[in-house]
């Protein structure tokens, strides 16, 4: 009980998501919304259109690109899957 409470209240000490952004190239329309909304300026579209996992060391795994993609191209993939 105490453990659960602590987990909910303490700030994150690890990356926001344990995973990478993966893409389904057949859904990508290359509109560029993903890269435009990336706070660290990763050209996400170049990965997405080729169906590549966004394997960029600067990715902070904030998930903005997944959130804004209008076509459902991007998703989380755990490091194990990737």
């Amino acid at each position, binding site marked *: 009980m105490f453990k659960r409470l602590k987990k909910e209240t303490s700030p994150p000490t690890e990356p926001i998501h344990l995973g990478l952004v993966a893409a389904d190239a057949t859904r990508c*329309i290359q*509109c*560029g919304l993903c890269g*435009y909304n990336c706070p660290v300026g990763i050209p996400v579209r170049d990965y997405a259109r080729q169906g590549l996992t966004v394997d960029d060391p600067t990715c902070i795994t904030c998930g903005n690109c997944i959130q804004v993609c209008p076509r*459902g191209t991007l998703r989380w993939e755990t490091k194990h899957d990737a």
Partner: protein
Amino acid sequence: MNYLIIGNGAAGITAAETIRQHDPRGQITILSAEPSLMYSRPGLAYVISGEIPPQQVIARTREWYADLRLELVYGRAQSLDVYNRLVMLADGRVLPYHKLLIATGARAVPAPYPGNDLDGVVYLDTLEGTKELLKKARRGQRGVVIGGGITALEMVEGLTQRGVNTHYFLRRDRLWSQVFNEAESRLLAEKMHHHGVHIHTNTEAAEILGNWRHNVRAVRLQNGKEFKCNLFGVAIGVKPQLELVKNTPIQTDRAILVNEQMQSNVPDVYAAGDCAQVYDRWSGQHLLDVLWPSAIAEGRTAALNMVGQTTPYVKGIPFNACLLFGLHITIIGQISPDPKAKDDFAEIQHLSRGSSEVWFTFPRHYQSAWAKSGPHTLRLALGGGNGNGREGHGRTIVGALIMGEQTLADPLRTLIENQVDASPLLPYLQSDRETLGREIKNLSLSVIRNP
């Protein structure tokens, strides 16, 4: 080898990239009628809505062209001499080729009314046209949009978000009547009302009226009434660009007819993308797709054949996922709402961007299932036979339309793409969306695990 690609869009660029992967030495020239680097045409919707600036839709850099040693030539192809293998440009230049890919795409059909040349008649079709639209779409103005299809709906959404008082004219009483059924139309209409869109059913324009400055000032309706507006958005469909192949031996129907190697009836002349009419294995006909992923797949197959790797094009199931007024919508395969709506199909003169003629074809022994749960809907179309010729033994899902929650989109795509026997689902067709959805997921998982 000298490759010439006419068209700097999805099909042309994918073809150029694929050719370079297989032929490091060949000369590749891309002819672009529009004065820009390759951009995402579907992305223009998000430029209108203000989610991205116009330059963001440009999907390739100048360095990318240079790295792949692609020569980009700006100019419009005017005529084609297939005997001497030459393409003549409007400005008098002549480009020779050994292998030619025609990927000229499609262009918006102009408004079929007098006054369609007035200032303020706008299209969501090209990057330049979109910039023009942005200049004219000012807050507080009154705009009218006509057309079924995704592009019209995207234009309505974009203009609304820009503060334009937007009025959407429907010829009938339903949104995109060839694709949506009544409940689906109502669901989207509710969202549109919520965003402040005024939908006018059974309303059709007859003339666009201008003022002395040649600006749009009103629309005269078919009932004779005048409706004031400053902006008239047109998205009634697109037409493949075929001017270049007129007066050549290249065979066309609604677009350039290609065989399964994406080759026209003239040797070494290929076509891909919106200007190509491709064999569809589901309906057994040559059908048009005006879809981004199809253009990419066709461009890739054409390129492989152009470099001498004989590769048949296996047309995928036409698919589109879009987000309109906050509502996610996925359309897969043969999905017209009603086989009796064949009249509607006959009435479709021009296909709208983001759609496929396959959607309006019907399988044998058509049956449909429908489930709704709050703002989430699911519609399935089932056909007879299971693809192995044993008519009546088993059923396959041939189309699906999913609105709202999208977790069923990928499982359904798997089932449709693989023509999976959907008999296990039959007992659940009348169930609620949750139960039917669970069974669909289970069936698709069993396919993925035991392909």
